């Protein structure tokens, strides 16, 4: 029963980059793989290829025992046979059918009566898509996809069509819905918080290539290279030079400053020139002269260059000889009376500095 979806494909669009991706998704139970990356990275292409709507140039797509696509034998199973629930960004509901008819469209036999109820659509059953709100449309689209009893769900930016407050609420709904069905899903998004909230596993695509894949937390915490770090939203990515390494620690030089970081997992990979990636959440700010003993290895004198309010947080851009961004709570910033031009100390733990190759 431990079957999986195995994708390994390449495709080139006219005038665009070569798109290459290799994924594995376990079937038969709940699982959400997030396909994450900036726009134009090729995520939709991969999704459409898995659905059977576009034909790759090379590679193979295997779902359990079925070969869906094989460039060497010329096999290309049409989408009808693949039993994939594909949700495009604008939901593509049939405007000439009621909600009930839309949901029942691909259902094999009589639709299970409670499907509409489960999705909260019972009282909307006789309305037309033109009369529904964004959130309702999403539910109908999902219900329709699930009524056809798919083996796999493919969701292309399911929340992008909605405005921000609605998106937040529906993200939770979507998570619960996906958890309640025994169908794995591949979900495309370019929103970081969505990826974090919805995904079990994540695959980062940049410039058409798959760069890193793995459990969501670990990819976000340990990006494999500078591009991935940027994509997942690490605020400070600085070129650095390795000075020395010993006892599992590494000393690097960024501009005039020196930092101590934990050595990389695979030391053989790194050479002299590297990138240092530091999340803003991991940077603390101290007033000069407070001299508290902390376990942090790095205390950098810095001048506050910029303070920007972002809701409940404040983004503080520091000049330590290189640009370092920190995120502190508004409360802290007020208590410490952080102002532009102040001299402070930036405190960063060695474990919070991620060194990646250049």
């Amino acid at each position, binding site marked *: 029963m431990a079957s999986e979806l195995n994708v390994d494909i390449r495709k080139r669009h006219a005038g665009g980059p070569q798109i290459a991706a290799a994924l594995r998704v376990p079937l038969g139970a709940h699982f959400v793989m997030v396909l994450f990356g900036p726009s134009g990275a090729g995520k939709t292409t991969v999704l459409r290829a898995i659905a*059977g*709507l576009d034909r790759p140039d090379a590679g193979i797509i295997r779902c359990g025992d079925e070969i869906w696509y094989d460039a060497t034998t010329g096999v290309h199973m049409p*989408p009808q046979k693949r039993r994939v629930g*594909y949700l495009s960004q*604008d939901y593509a509901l049939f405007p000439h059918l009621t909600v009930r008819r839309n949901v029942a469209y*691909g259902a094999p036999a009589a639709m299970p009566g409670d499907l509409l109820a489960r999705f909260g659509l019972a009282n909307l059953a006789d309305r*037309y898509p033109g009369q529904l709100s964004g959130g309702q449309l999403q539910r109908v689209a999902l219900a*329709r*996809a699930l009524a056809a009893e798919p083996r796999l769900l493919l969701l292309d930016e399911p929340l992008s069509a909605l405005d921000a407050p609605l998106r937040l609420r529906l993200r939770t709904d979507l998570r619960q819905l996906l958890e309640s069905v025994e169908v794995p899903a591949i979900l495309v998004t370019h929103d970081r918080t969505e990826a974090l909230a919805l995904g079990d596993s994540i695959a980062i695509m940049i410039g058409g290539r798959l760069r890193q894949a793995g459990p969501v937390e670990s990819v976000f915490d340990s990006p494999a290279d500078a591009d991935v770090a940027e994509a997942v939203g690490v605020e400070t990515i600085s070129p650095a030079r390795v000075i020395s390494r010993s006892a599992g620690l590494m000393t690097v030089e960024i501009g005039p400053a020196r930092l101590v970081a934990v050595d990389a997992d695979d030391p053989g990979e790194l050479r002299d020139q590297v990138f240092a990636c530091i999340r803003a959440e991991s940077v603390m700010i101290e007033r000069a002269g407070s001299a508290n003993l902390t376990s942090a290895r790095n205390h950098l004198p810095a001048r506050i260059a910029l303070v920007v309010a972002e809701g409940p947080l404040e983004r503080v851009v520091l000049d330590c000889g290189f640009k370092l961004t920190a995120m502190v709570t508004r409360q802290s910033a007020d208590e410490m009376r952080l102002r532009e031009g102040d001299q402070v100390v930036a405190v960063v733990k060695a474990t919070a500095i991620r060194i990646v190759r250049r």
Partner: protein
Amino acid sequence: MEWQAIWLSLRLSFWTTLILLALGLPAAHWLTYSPRRWKFLAEALVALPLVLPPTVLGFYILVAIGPHSPAGRLYATLTGGMLPFSFQGLLVASVIYSLPFAVQPFAASFAAVDRRLIEASWCLGISRPATFFRVIVPLSIPGIVTGMILSFAHTLGEFGVVLMVGGNLPGVTRTVSIAIYDDAQALDYTAAWHTSLLLLGISFAVLAATYGLRRKAWAVWPAYGQ
């Protein structure tokens, strides 16, 4: 009053429209969705009756289905009859003559159907032919109706082609437009006048009814109202 001719013309238009519906939908489907490079040649061929003078068209059709032609000989062996100068011959001529008036509106409305709806249907397990009938056609109803109205009206007004291919045989191929022409030549202006007026009335009634029905279609599918 040329009742026989009027009835003949109505029958001719009706059957021509029906045949064009059956032939035109698949043809328009192919023209819209085929990826073949030489599709533009087929498009030009379909549009040809728009540009050719009716008498030229009529002449070519007469030769193409006449007793000396392969098509004519086949028909003779199958049915023992002759295509030109018969109602069936007029049908063939009318279908060719009104072809672009059906196919072009059909194809235009198919092309306007959102591709993503078609793909959604495929992903839900529905085959291409079934998708055509369950998604594309319902969303193309206004265009299909337009094509049918145009074919009907166009056939009703046919003259040159019918005269060439039909031979003006009373009760068989003497359509109302020929009958009016004939009456005028026989200096029977009263008959010509009366028949013309009735034809005008029938045409207008058909058009008004069909446009009126199209309005109703918008109430059935609210999507069109947007």
